Every structure is written in structure tokens, then in C-alpha cells.
């Protein structure tokens, strides 16, 4: 993985890769992990089997919590000593108090929520910062697939046929940026990843990023005059 010096992300040097940990962690999760300060209070929504949480707890001493919809994922996380509850982003965020976490992570999950706007607002309420990653529906491969084949695109990231996809609220990077503006979320950092998951730096508001990025990773903070980190 090449880390461009232009990347405005890595506030903390990544922990030295240990054993299987680094290779096990999905590339976008590794990038997210690099954005999180040591000892932070982190909530990972849609944490799957808890790979990111385990990595953060092990390498950064993070107070890591997770929410996961699938019971098998929850059980796997708790079996491995992680703090994970069964729940979902649409329903179970309201119970948390304001600013309960330093960072709230929503990776590859926003597009599967019923009410993405409310979920985003909740993220910014319960966390000082939110890190959101999602597949970019404006990616050239997707556009081309729809244009030339006239069928709903199926890609590595969006690998379900239309009739059984959990991804009910797909958006482009520009759509996402517009929603951030609408709800008054400040984009502190952004990162675009190509189809190999490699990061490249482009203005997320530009057309090129929206065309070339297969996924976007955004660090957001709320509008309520909270101190920016």
C-alpha cells in the first residue's frame, strides 16, 4: 500500500503490523484505524465480526465498542472479548447520550440503513467525530455498467443482485457531500479509494473524485460548535 505524503489523514503513525493482524484487516478498515487516536472511545456501528475493534484494542489501547445486526457477528465479537451488542443503526443509536464517543465509525453500512440522514445526524450527536465509508455509486465502472449493459451494476463492493441487496440507499460521493452540507456536518478529512482499495487524494467535491473513486471515506464533525480536533 502506498501512502502518499499528500494524504492529510494519518495523524498518528500506524502501529507496527503485528502477526496476522494487518493482513487480516480489510484495507479500508486499516485506513480508518489510522485515523483513530490511541485510547479514544470508539463505537463501530456494523462492526461485523469485530475485526476493526480487535485491531484498535490491540494496537491502540482504544476503548472499543461495537453494534452489529447479525447475531453470529455479535457472538463472534463477544467470544473474542470485545464489547459488542446486537442492534442496528436505525433503531439503537437513540439510546446513547450526546458525545458518548470520541469517534463513531460507520463503515460500508450507511447505504444499508433505512434512514441515512437520521443515522448521520445521530452519529454526529453521539460522537465528537464520525468516520463514514461507503461505496461510490458514481464510480465509472458502475456508470459504464448501467450505461452499456442496462442492468443494475454488480461489483466487488456491491455484490448482490438488485432483488436481494441490503443496500437500499446507494449514493455518489457528490450526493454524500451535498447531504453533509445540508445537515451542517463539517468534512474534516476525506479520502477516496480506487478499485484496488488504494487511496488517492482528490477534492471530494470535484467531478473527478466522483468518477474515479470506488469508495469514499469521510471524517465528519458536528455543527454544534464542538471543538474540532
Amino acid at each position, binding site marked *: 500500500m502506498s501512502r502518499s505524503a499528500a494524504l492529510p489523514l494519518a495523524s498518528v503513525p500506524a502501529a507496527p503490523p503485528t502477526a496476522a493482524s494487518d493482513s487480516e484487516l480489510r484495507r479500508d478498515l486499516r485506513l480508518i484505524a489510522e485515523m483513530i487516536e490511541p485510547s479514544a472511545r470508539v463505537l463501530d456501528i456494523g462492526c461485523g465480526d469485530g475485526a476493526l475493534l480487535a485491531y484498535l484494542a490491540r494496537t491502540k489501547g482504544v476503548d472499543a465498542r461495537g453494534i452489529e445486526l447479525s*447475531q453470529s457477528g455479535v457472538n463472534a465479537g463477544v467470544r473474542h472479548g*470485545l464489547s459488542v451488542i446486537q442492534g442496528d443503526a436505525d433503531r439503537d443509536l437513540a439510546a446513547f447520550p450526546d458525545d458518548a464517543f470520541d469517534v463513531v465509525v460507520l463503515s460500508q453500512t450507511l447505504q444499508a440503513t433505512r434512514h441515512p440522514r437520521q443515522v448521520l445526524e445521530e452519529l454526529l450527536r453521539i460522537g465528537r467525530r464520525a468516520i463514514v465509508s461507503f461505496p461510490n455509486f458514481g464510480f465509472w465502472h458502475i456508470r459504464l455498467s448501467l450505461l452499456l449493459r442496462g442492468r443494475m451494476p454488480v461489483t466487488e463492493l456491491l455484490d448482490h443482485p438488485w432483488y436481494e441487496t441490503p443496500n437500499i440507499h446507494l449514493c455518489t460521493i457528490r450526493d454524500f457531500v451535498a447531504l453533509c452540507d445540508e445537515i451542517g456536518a463539517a468534512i474534516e478529512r476525506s479520502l477516496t479509494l480506487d478499485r484496488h482499495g488504494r487511496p488517492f487524494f482528490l477534492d471530494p467535491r470535484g467531478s473527478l473524485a466522483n468518477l474515479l473513486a470506488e469508495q469514499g471515506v469521510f471524517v465528519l464533525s458536528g455543527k454544534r460548535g464542538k471543538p474540532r480536533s
Partner: protein
Amino acid sequence: MRSAASGGAPPTAPVVRTLAPSPVSILTAPRPQRPGHDWPGHSLAIDEPLRLDCGVELGPFTVAYQTYGTLNRERSNAILVCHALTGDQYCADPHPITGHPGWWTTLIGPGGVLDTERYFLICANVIGGCMGTTGPRDTNPATGDAWALDFPVITIRDMVRAQKLVVDHLGIEQLFCVIGGSMGAMQALQWASSYPDSVFAAVPIAGAARHSAQNIAFHEVGRQAIMADPDWCGGRYLSLGRNPSRGLAVARMAAHITYLSEAALHRKFGRNLQDRNAVTYGFDADFQVESYLRHQGSTFVDRFDANSYLYITRAMDYFDLAAEHGGSLPAAFAGNQPRFCIVSFTSDWLFPTAESRALVHGLNAVAANVSFVEIETDKGHDAFLLHEPELFDTLRGFLTGCAEHRGLTRFWP
């Protein structure tokens, strides 16, 4: 407080009060010195009256308890095991009356989930019980007769207050964990709420933050069955040399159904007939499920006191953590909260998952460190007592994680 332990071996655990520097090995359980009761294990006699929720001061009184494993030098590896409605302190050794193995031998033992080579386990009979801790069967010092219904009504919080005295007596400032299923879960929650600084981790299994209307209703059926037995005699059966065993058996039979699930009953018995090829057109136990329930009822009365059943079911009925805090469940968990692992079972209709989820939301509201696992099983409420590998893996993972956070790397002194 006076501690009593008899049976040849020198008194061991209770003398920890002197804060002896050496670890306390309590693998051989001494016997208590209570007249009339000769249950194996430890007992702590407390002279100071206990102020109960009902306003009455109870005392002097006795708490009977069992311990397993060894308390480490730092006294940081203690786990309090809380028993359910009809359980007792014999969670890991044979019951002195029935001879049956302890009720949580699935979890407890060397190398087990509650590993007696790593942890020091304490299990105390609840106040109001009938296995050595003061309850309605014991003698009321004011009358010289059994307490019966003159025994004050106790609550889950009263049970926990009594347990706290035992924990203090053993010189343990903070329990590593409080764990229990059903009514044991209620006690674990009460511990977290009443003594948050004295608990590092809490594991309420198949529990709830309050007893539901349906559960109160089932308990009332059980109590009415006992009271309808002519041998109950207004609760004074002991003085009159009688025992309302039919009423208690019916109470147990009704309750036992609520501990299972329809699927489990069907899997176990279906409509199978008991030792016969056809129904008899009578009211004998034609069906296996009837025979099973009758057996459950008749064996239960050998080891349980009917008045204790009334008192302990009442304590569960009164349990409502939020009500103790102005109706707010999060307020019950204000302060420095332990790490929680909440477990429910899919087929448990007595303490359904929704109750555990409400608990999780209450804990989320104070941003407590909480894990919540719902385990898929058809075994119903009783699943917490049975062989349930997913439960074992969950608890082992949670406890191992907690032990790391607690710095419990060294288990032997």
C-alpha cells in the same frame, strides 16, 4: 459478625477477615454449626441487624455460603455466583439432600468457564432461603417458634445487602464478577446498581430490569397453590408438624412449564404416552409430559420450603430497578459502571430478549461498557443451566477479556 465452620478442618475462608497475607484455600468445605441444620459449607453469623426494604430490621441472622478455588493475594479474582429462585449455594458440589450434582457444574470447575483454578467463587444462599441462610423456616428469637409468615418480606436488594456482608467479611473490596441467571441476573444487576465500585464485571443471564406482569401472574398461581393446600395452615405448618407438599408441588409444576419452551417440551415428550399403549380415559398421568411434571413437583418438595417459595417469589415480583430510581433505568446505573455482558435466549418466553434489550438501552444511555448476546436455542429459560456451548464460549470470551483489563494475569499468589 461471627463465622462458623465445623467438620474437623480448621476454619478457613471466614477468618480472612483478619486480612491474612496468605491465600485462602477452601477446597474442602467445613460444616456449619447451626442447630437444627447441618448443611455442609460455611456460614456467617451476623449480629448487627440488617435494615430491610420493608422497614424491618432483621437480626441476628446467618448467611450460608460455599466457596470454590483460591482467593489470590490481591483478592482480585473473586466471582460471586448468584442463584435463581429455587437454587442454593451448592452450585458446584452435590446437593446435601438430593445428592444431585451442583446446579452450575456445566460452568464451574477446574478449566471450566468459571475456572476454579483461576477464580475464587462464592455462592451464598439468599436471605429468605431454606438452605442455611435465615429464612421463614428458622426460629424467630422473639417467639422461639418458626418465623413462618412473621418473617419480614425481603427484596432482591435485601439479598444483595446480605451478600455484601459476606464479601466484606472475606476482605474482598471489589468482586471481579457477579454472575447469575434469572433471579441471579436480578441480583447481578442490583449489585451493579447498589455497589458499582465493588463490581468489575456483571453478567446477568436470562434476566430483566424488572419482573413483568406475566411473571408476577405465574408466581401468584404458585403462591395460591401453596396457600390452598390445607396443610399450609396459614404458614404455620412447621409448628403443627405438617407440610403443604401438594401445594408446593403444583407451584413447582406450573413454574417448571415456564422454564421450558413449547419446542423443547415437544422434542422431549411430544404426545408420547407413559408406560402404556393407549390413553386410559382417566386422570392418571397418561402422557409422559404429565409424568415428568409430577416427578419435578414431588422431588422439589423434598428440598424446598413452601414459605421460602412464597418469600422468594415475592422478592422477584417486587424487583424493578427503574422504580428504585424515579422510574429511570439509566439513573439506576449512574456512577462508575462495571463491564456488562447481557445474555438472553431466543426461546425464553419468561425473560424474553426484549427485556434484555431494554436493559441494554438503559445501559447505553449512560454509555456503559456493555456486550449483549442473544443465543439461539430451543431450551427456553432453563438454557442457562444446560449444556449450551454458545453460552460457554460467550462467557469465556467475556471473562477472559475482563481479566485482561483487570490485570488478572497472575492467578496464583
